[in-house]
């Protein structure tokens, strides 16, 4: 009988995706593009928040949107109607986006001409949290009707995000939602997460959200680690 051999492998199962995601982040750095991965349950307001963001930022920044859905193109039609570059990725049954899919979406958008790219991930609080998309930062939405217990049920999602938007705050009186208990649960999982409150319906809190993106964009457009370039005399260049 042939001898049984034991081969040491010690290879990270998700290393391919991680490598691809890091490659993507390098590429975004080189084009000075900030890419945000927006995740949430279905129906919590991802598309509405994107439309609000477009409204507030389109005159000042060059925007692109990557939409992901298992089926249908309704979200991308809404975005395109606002005159914004949008790519629709149909995941063909997959419940999340990975770095390869996002890379293809980014190719189609042409990141060299964009300041801000928002990925609308598949509506799902489980799988998207496992896969690094290559985005600069991760954001999630939790809407009031979903309840304040979600950090207990989907801890990984709250762990991987840099910012959490609590949406539909206009419905706060209708649902039982203990905001203080909620924030405490979130901060136990992730001390560094920023928590913002919005209503995409009334527009309340959108300024705070846009301010958060603006702050992040500033870090990408003027990276702190690099020495500032000597500016030529004359009028400041306008971004087109």
């Amino acid at each position, binding site marked *: 009988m042939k001898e049984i051999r034991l*081969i040491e492998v010690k290879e990270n199962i998700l290393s*391919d995706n991680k490598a691809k995601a890091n490659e993507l982040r390098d590429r975004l750095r080189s084009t000075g593009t900030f890419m945000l991965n927006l995740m949430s349950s279905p129906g919590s307001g991802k598309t509405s928040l994107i439309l609000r963001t477009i409204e507030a930022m389109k005159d000042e920044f060059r925007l692109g949107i990557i939409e992901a859905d298992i089926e249908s193109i309704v979200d991308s039609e809404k975005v395109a109607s606002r005159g914004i570059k949008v790519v629709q990725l149909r995941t063909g049954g997959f419940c999340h986006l990975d770095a390869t899919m996002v890379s293809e979406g980014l190719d189609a958008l042409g990141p060299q001409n964009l300041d801000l790219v928002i990925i609308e991930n598949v509506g799902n609080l*489980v799988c998207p949290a496992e896969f690094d998309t290559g985005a600069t930062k991760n954001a999630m939405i939790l809407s009031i009707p979903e309840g304040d217990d979600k950090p*207990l049920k989907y801890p990984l999602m709250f762990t991987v995000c840099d910012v959490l938007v609590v949406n539909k705050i206009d419905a706060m009186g209708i649902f039982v939602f203990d905001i203080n208990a909620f924030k405490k649960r979130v901060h136990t999982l992730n001390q560094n997460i920023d928590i913002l409150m919005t209503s995409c319906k009334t527009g309340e809190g959108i300024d705070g959200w846009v301010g958060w993106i603006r702050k992040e964009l500033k870090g990408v457009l003027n990276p702190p680690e690099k020495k500032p370039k000597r500016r030529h005399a004359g009028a400041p260049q306008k971004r087109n």
Partner: protein
Amino acid sequence: MHELPIVKSIFDICVKHATANKAKKILSVTLKVGEVSDLQDQWIQRYFDYLSKGTIVEGAKLVIKRVPLVMRCKLCSESFQVNVNERRQVECPRCKGTKLAYVSGREYIVENLEIV
């Protein structure tokens, strides 16, 4: 549902190493999976069997070793094991700090292969 792409990745790693080592067959695959992962053992094996049909990996048994969740306090540097089910109220047992970092528990690693 995200088990399938993860298992595909395990399968690809197995084929790569088995081919490089001129294996006739893979008998077992040992995985190290962090306790934080919600992957279910029986689903990993089912998807794995599905993907490996007709390949040198077919029939390989998956041995899944769970890695405990260990956290380290950012204030006093104490490391301690955490029961995954009690993770919601975690604090440092030494200084009661709540600023914590992951030490282990989120692994997804193909540890080794048994081949003939």
